[in-house]
């Protein structure tokens, strides 16, 4: 699971609503998968990112210096875009868990794939 995806995921446990974001990340196996740098795509993603959640996840994975917010004129700033490219697209959690911050329900990540299934009673009406 990439951090870009993690940034969009939220718990859909019943009654939790917006408090289900962000999912608390815990990783037992992480790998770095190089991906061709595409500045246009990264620049497009920047406005969609919930920054605090991203910083928190990146810190959990000890990714080092993470910009605390998008810098001014980021669209032209290659260094910034390359850093964000790495954080959002090249770091993959292979084994770990995502935990709903409100209900505590845990969603496992296996072979890089999160499993978000819940039974009927547990999900939002």
């Amino acid at each position, binding site marked *: 699971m990439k951090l870009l995806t993690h940034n969009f995921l939220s718990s859909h446990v019943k009654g939790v609503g917006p408090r289900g974001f962000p999912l608390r990340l815990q990783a037992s196996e992480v790998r770095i998968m190089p991906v061709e740098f595409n500045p246009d795509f990264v620049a497009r993603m920047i406005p969609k990112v919930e920054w605090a959640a991203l910083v928190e996840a990146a810190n959990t994975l000890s990714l080092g210096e993470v910009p605390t917010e998008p810098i001014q004129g980021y669209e032209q700033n290659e260094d910034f875009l390359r850093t964000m490219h790495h954080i959002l697209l090249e770091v993959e959690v292979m084994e770990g868990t995502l935990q709903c911050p409100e209900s505590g329900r845990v969603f496992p990540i296996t*072979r*890089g794939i999160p499993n*978000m299934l819940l039974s009927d009673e547990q999900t939002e009406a």
Partner: protein
Amino acid sequence: MERSIFELWGHGKSPEELYSSLKNYPVEKMVPFLHSGSTYKIKIHTFNKTLTQEEKVKRIDALEFLPFEGKVNLKNPQHIFSVLEDYGLDPNCIPENPHNIYFGRWIADGQRELIESYSVKKRHFIGNTSMDAGLSFIMANHGKVKENDIVFDPFVGTGGLLVASAHFGAYVCGTDIDYNTVHGLGKASRKNQKWRGPDENIRANLRQYGLEKYYLDVLVSDASKPSWRKGTYFDAIITDPPYGIRESTRRTGSQKETPKGIEKCPESHVPVSLSYHLSDMFFDLLNFAAETLILGGRLVYWLPVYTPEYTEDMVPWHPCLKLISNCEQKLSSHTSRRLITMEKVKKFENRDQYSHLLSGQCLPYQGHNSFRERYFSGLTKRIAKEEKSVQE
């Protein structure tokens, strides 16, 4: 459906208009294909009219003003340019002059070449319902998929639709309720093969075509219970939902339901067998699309219909989505599926607001809940008849 793809260099309603349009096309864009080391030829295509060889040559000569510096090679040129003349659609009324003339550089015989190289036969990872390669490209086309888009498939299966979108430069992600399929485990769909090998998963399919860089993520998830935070992320949602025939229509259910068949889902003991009414599924899909698509984004999906009962107002609708197209593909004598394309034209306000859409008046598709029964109706009637005669 296009047969060929051209890079358009000029267009006009008359030859003069075409030539001035060509003179306005940036020279730097032409030069790579016209330089002295290259070879080329020019073809004339006319739609709804036949020209003599002399007429064709005249048209080619008229293009002399273009900076062609390469050598003409009629057999095997590096670059092919085409003049396309449109004489309308009525073979009984062919105009003297064309309605439109286009000049462009030929890129590919669109469907055929793509279909060949992306053929499901050659693909590493397939399932029982893997989309025919040609159709997956049509769907990506309908979704206006382009570079740097994010495309999502909520019923991703083996990822065929993602491959097509990635081909157009979109970054792709998907979900599926079936753990085994998403992970690439379990029984193989290929004849003569028992179990799926380690290289058979969605990511491997993208890798096979050199498109791995476009892979974002796939998740095991129930499309009726999406786990995305509030917001608009997707430029296109392109999907082939289950019709309940070859792969069954499911969603997660309560603990009381006992699951049928093997569900190799070790860490999540969630029974997955509650039958999911088709109408609910399309309502969920449209609502999900309305919420997560960017404004102007597209939803492209297949809608199974029982042809004798089909009417246009059965196509599910949503106040935020505008119907762009609706094309039929026959499946059997009494069933077909329709390729529906919708575009988000209105901002999504809040989830509860649209629950009334599930009512019978708003969703005539309700009647199609028994699509599975109707699909098999010919077959089951025959079996019932045979059983009866055996008993007698």
